[in-house]
């Protein structure tokens, strides 16, 4: 009887200790490439890719379950960086160049509720209670988080107007921008 108790106890202790040790030393590390990818992503957790945040998107990318073109705010530069990181063959001409967007506040309908500035991941909206809010153009990543929270639907994304500094010659053979 006593020997049986001793055996069971020692087995329990021994196995428990072995489990504790193995959980410490044989732990499966987080895929290191996931962290690298997460560092490339904007980090604004906007969810436009369909994943809950940049971390989840990075994991999906590292498992090869998401396309490298998933992040609209990152643009072509991010696509190229991701493709290089993941050694994905990429046909750049197939990527549809999206015009850069910008959040815009309609002054007539803004009631100064401050909801949008609380959710903005880049602090691109400035305002105070019952004051007209406004978007700092250079800080806006067009993540669209502010649009959902606005009670008066006064926020929308709008393509950035081209000016002399951002205008570029198109590729020969393609139709040039109409004047």
């Amino acid at each position, binding site marked *: 009887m006593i020997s049986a108790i001793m055996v069971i106890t020692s087995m329990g202790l021994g196995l428990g200790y072995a489990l504790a040790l193995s959980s410490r030393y044989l732990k499966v590390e987080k895929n290191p490439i996931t962290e690298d990818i997460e560092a490339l992503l*904007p*980090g604004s957790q906007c969810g436009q890719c369909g994943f809950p945040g940049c971390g989840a998107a990075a994991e999906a990318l590292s498992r090869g379950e998401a396309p490298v073109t998933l992040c609209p705010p990152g643009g072509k*530069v991010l696509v190229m960086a991701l493709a290089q990181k993941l050694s994905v063959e990429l046909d*750049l*001409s197939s990527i549809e160049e999206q015009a850069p967007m910008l959040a815009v506040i309609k002054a007539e309908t803004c009631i100064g509720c401050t909801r949008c500035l609380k959710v903005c991941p880049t602090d691109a909206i400035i305002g105070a209670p019952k004051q007209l809010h406004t978007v700092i153009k250079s800080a806006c990543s067009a993540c669209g988080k502010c649009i959902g929270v606005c009670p008066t639907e006064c926020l929308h994304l709008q393509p950035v107007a081209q000016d002399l500094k951002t205008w*570029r010659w198109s590729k020969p053979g393609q139709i040039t921008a109409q004047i």
Partner: protein
Amino acid sequence: MKLARTRGGVHPEYHKKPTSALPVESLPLPQMLYLPLQQHVGTTAVPVVKVGEYVRKGQMIASAEGHLSAHIHAPTSGKIKFIADFTAPHPSGLPTLTIQLEPDGLDIADDELPDRDPFALSSREISSIVSEAGIVGMGGAAFPSAVKLDQGSKGQIHTLIINGSECEPYLTCDDRLMQEHADGIVDGARIMMHALNAPCARIAIEGNKPEAIATMKAAASSWDNIAVVPMPVCYPMGSAKQMIQFITGKEVPAGGRSAELGVLVHNVATTFAVHQALRTGRPLISRLVTVGGGAIRSPRNFHVLLGTLVSDLIESSGGLKESPARLLSGGPMMGQIMPHAHVPIVKNTSGIIALIGSELQKDDTRPCIRCGRCVSVCPAGLLPLQMAARIRVDDVDGAAKIGLTDCISCGSCSYVCPSNIPLVHYFTFAKGELSSRREQQRQNDHIRGLTESRSKRLAEQKRAKAEELAKKKARSNNSKETVN
């Protein structure tokens, strides 16, 4: 003096004869002047006048913003009519903020500065006067001249090169300026030599301008350290890098600056503007412009107030023979296509060239036959056909690896291509692509920095709140204990 050979180059038809012998004419005062706030490389200038305000000739109407920018002055006296968007003299045809000045015809100027001795001034004082006068590179680059002088005075400049080569076909405005204002140019060169502390200056002029060479030689004869260098007639000899290589025998390294070699290049028109600013206090409010090309009835050089419309200029020159197939600002090799003639003359408009169909290159692009002519004419020693082949399949990085960024966009390769491949257009497109990628990368980094600082701030706030709460709890526990 040892003169080195440069590589490449082409010999286009120059078409300079009709205008180089005719004296410069002035224009009648236009009805309205249009002065874009962006006439230079760098940050857009900021208006300092209000709509309806009366301005005198030479009064500053827009002020430079930041280090790399330039002032803009009223070319004549009159009233500010509008400050509004107006088509820019740019191939995009996009609007840009423009001050519209309605001349009153009186041409009332500010009191001119008392005569001063530029050679008693320090480098800094000279460059600040140049900056006050709003002078930018008038050969085409429109780089603020004061910034260039400042950069030059930091390093050891041993040779100042005054660029009078004017290698673009049709253009003769620098040629006429040298023939009519040789003394002013030499004086401007001496002032800049003083500012840069440069021991010698070379005035480089292509051999197809014998009159200009003769007048400049006569004007420079009293100064031992200023020499006129006749250059071989070959396009693009007027490019700063080619000129430096020819005169000093040294090649500007890839990605490097000419100042590293102890050389600085300024255009003759810029040099003359420096002379005027220092001697008479006159800011940059006018320039010489060549009106030429097959569609122009009587090609000629004009002394034009900045802000004059191209259409006014063409009309005053005698009008068009036929409607032009292409309207260019600058020469036919490197000039910018203008969307229409209702755009203003700006600080770097050296010519208005209206070409007819027979003067244009055919646009029936055929496959590359790998003849290698573009390789032999490339003054930068690049392989245009290989770069274009990479860019055609969107491998812009591949093109950059074989020297795209060293391309000076001179257009020699497109000029000689027997298959009419628009090579330089490919390179312009690819350079634009590279710079917009750089811009986007910068923006992405900026956004990431912002999100990181925000999450840091939120975490900090959360921690502070928790601490506050814990403190409160501890305090209330203490008070309870004392009560008990």
